[in-house]
Every structure is written in C-alpha cells, then in structure tokens.
C-alpha cells in the first residue's frame, strides 16, 4: 500500500468547453503510482465517467489518442470537437 505523499506521478488534467461544464471542473491534478494512458487519466479524473463520443485529447498540447501513454509531469487535456474560425 503506497502512501499518498510518495506517489511518483503527478499529471495535470484540463477540461474545456462542454466537457468542462459536464465534468464540473476546468482542471485537476492527478497523483498516481503507475504509468497510465490518456484514456485512464480521463477515467481517474472523472471518477469513471463515460467519455463522450468524439472527445478529443492532447498530451502536452499535442493531439493524441486514448492509448497514448502519459508520463510524470504531463498535461493531459480533454475537449469536444472544435468550433473556431
């Protein structure tokens, strides 16, 4: 059993637009003791909420898919289809 203060990974989570409203927060700080994927980061940060179809994600501000491995210190963002321009 790991002690919280020794968890080796800290991952910054961000939510935007409709997802931000649905999740009820614009950011979070995930502490974990093993490497996780972007998809796992969503599950942990939302207490297992189902990810909406068409959700886009980025690690360190680059588009990735849900299988992408995240590392300590990464910023992982989730957002709906973009509607700029």
């Amino acid at each position, binding site marked *: 059993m790991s002690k919280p203060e020794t968890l080796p990974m800290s991952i910054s989570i961000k939510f935007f637009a409709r997802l931000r409203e649905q999740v009820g927060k614009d950011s979070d700080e995930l502490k974990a003791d093993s490497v996780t994927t972007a998809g796992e980061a969503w599950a942990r940060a939302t207490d297992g909420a189902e990810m909406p179809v068409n959700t886009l994600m980025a690690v360190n501000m680059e588009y990735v898919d849900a299988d992408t491995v995240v590392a300590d210190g990464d910023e992982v963002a989730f957002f709906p289809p973009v*509607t*700029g321009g």
Partner: protein
Amino acid sequence: MKVEIRKKGFEPYAELARYQTELNIDGQYGACATFIGSMRDFNEGDSVQSMVLEYYPGMTEKYLEKISTEAIDRWELLDSLIIHRVGEIHPADPIVLVAAWSAHRAAAFDACRHLMEDLKSKAPFWKKETLSDGERWVEKNTLG
C-alpha cells in the same frame, strides 16, 4: 509569420495594412489571399445575440504556429498572418483573419484556404451561443 489570439475586437483591414507594411516584402509578393470570418446574427435557423469563444491557452497558439510554418514551407509563402478572436463577441464582429503572401496567386489561394480549413477542423476553439431563450454550444463545424 504571426499568430495572435485577440481578447478585444479588431479591425481586419487595418491589421492587414499595418502588418503588411511591417513585412517589408514590397515588390516581392504578387499575391495576397485573405479570409475574414465574422459573426452572423443567425445560425441553424436561430437568431443569435452573442457568443463566447473559448480556447486552450498555449495549445491554440502552438497549433496555429505549427500549421503556419507548414503552410509557409509547403507553398513557399513569403509570409502568413492569423488573428483569432476569443471572449464575448457580437454579430458582425470579426472572428478570424487568415492571410497568405506569395509570389504567385495559386500558392496564396491554396495556402489561405488550407489554413482556414485546418484551423476550423483542428485548432482548439469552442463557441457557445446565446440565443433569446438560453445558451448552447456549437456542436461542430461544417466542412468547407
């Protein structure tokens, strides 16, 4: 090359005139293609009163810089400019300005249009409209 996120209103033609003067490519470019997107007062059959444009500070700029650099390489542009508005906007307000300068017209046209399509399909911006009876997120952009 310049990419800018604007929190206040801007006047596209004044921006273009100013930026082009600073560019110092007079006599080199034969072609400048530009696109200006503005807020309409209707969308999907409904009257829209205002809109809030959200973005992802850091990633949005990074993404726009990436596609600008790629377009300059691919079409051998002399330069490019992208300005995109964020925050609360109202009908007729300019939302986006894209410009591409090149020696010949095909490159300017192709690059300008490509930048707009890429921006609309992948740059992290989100629109929330205020209608007379409430708010709604714009679900997706149409293909150009």
